[in-house]
């Protein structure tokens, strides 16, 4: 048991923050995200023996989280399409100035408006740090499809940032 715990901690114990962030942006809700991460670790604990390639542990646990989300949590996600719909303020890891905060809030708002097919590969890339090949494997789509979705996701976010910044300056 101790050996299993050590292996578990070494392979995926350090990923809880990244998993929580990924879960949060999937669920758009803090409580659901926490439950999803706990459930993911439980599943991973039970299935640890099935992990054959330890180098793929990160992909493996993100895959578990995505499956658990689809299995148990997706239908519970509240209908949120902007920051105003959230019933709490997102807490940042570091303090920031008002200009930075404005930009970041615009991007967050745009992320919440993104279709899942664009937001998910983007989250896997930015939060998970996965390459396009790894994202393609995770999502079971081609690498070129991933690149197209990432391109469109960033284009939409940049457009929102440009548009909202102009409105902000005009005001």
């Amino acid at each position, binding site marked *: *048991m101790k050996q299993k*715990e050590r292996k*578990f901690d070494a392979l995926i114990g350090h990923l*809880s*923050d990244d998993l*929580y*962030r990924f879960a*949060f*942006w999937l669920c758009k809700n*803090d409580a659901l995200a*926490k439950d999803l*991460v*706990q459930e993911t*670790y*439980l599943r991973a*604990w*039970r299935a640890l023996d099935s992990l054959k390639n330890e180098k793929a542990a990160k992909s493996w646990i993100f895959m578990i989280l995505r499956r658990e989300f689809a299995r148990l949590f997706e239908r519970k996600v509240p209908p949120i399409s902007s920051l105003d719909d959230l019933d709490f303020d*997102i*807490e*940042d*890891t*570091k303090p*920031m100035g008002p200009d*930075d905060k404005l*930009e*970041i809030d615009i*991007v*967050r708002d745009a*992320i919440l408006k993104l279709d899942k097919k664009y937001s998910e590969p983007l*989250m896997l*890339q*930015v*939060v998970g740090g996965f*390459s*396009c090949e790894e994202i393609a494997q995770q999502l079971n789509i081609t690498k070129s499809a991933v*690149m197209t979705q*990432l*391109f469109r996701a*960033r*284009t939409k*976010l*940049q457009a929102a*940032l440009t548009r909202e910044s102009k409105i902000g300056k005009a005001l």
Partner: protein
Amino acid sequence: MNYFEFRQQLLRDSFTKDEEFHRLRKEDLRCAQAYADAMNFEKTLKRAFEIKTPDTLKDSIVLRQATQNTNAHLIRRYAIAATIFLTFVIMSSTWYIKQPGPIEKFVIEALMMEPEIYMSDEALPQHQIDELFASLNTKIDGDFGQIHFMKTCPTPGGTGARMVLMTDHGPVTLLYMPKANLNERIDFELEKYRGSIVAMETGAVAINGDNKQQLSYVEARLQNSISML
């Protein structure tokens, strides 16, 4: 790769290792500018995703993980049953009390809010238990028994602790409230389960188990073991 393709690549994956991409980034002024703009955007994007994770996240994962083996699962089911039962028992008892006191109220609410007890399949090390009791300005003497779960929690008047103690007759759920003032002992009994809220040298403790012998044993141990620092 031309400028247009370079910009497309920036929007797909600006951290690519493609040599041609990096050559243009260094040699072409327009590409260099586009790259700098993209890096600024990537910084904003990264910070947008970087939200603070809950302080209790890691603890809750560890606790959930600790429940995962067959024996622990079985024990946990008993513990859950015992905890839920304690809730019902206390609720039943308070039914007869026209105005339940703050301690009874607290115990009911606390257990209703968190009916599931997480347990490790191994007893907690003594030093960890000592530290937890010390944080409550109390100490524990002698052989108290095998504590498989202990966590501090808010209780009337200050911080207390929720515990699961393993005995030869099964798990016993305890809610220790070091700052609570209990005027008189409250005993409950329903079917084969029994529960009590008893006054201690410091505060009070709610005890629940399914066996009279087990409860008496635990109560005696508690009275003899817990004292103020």
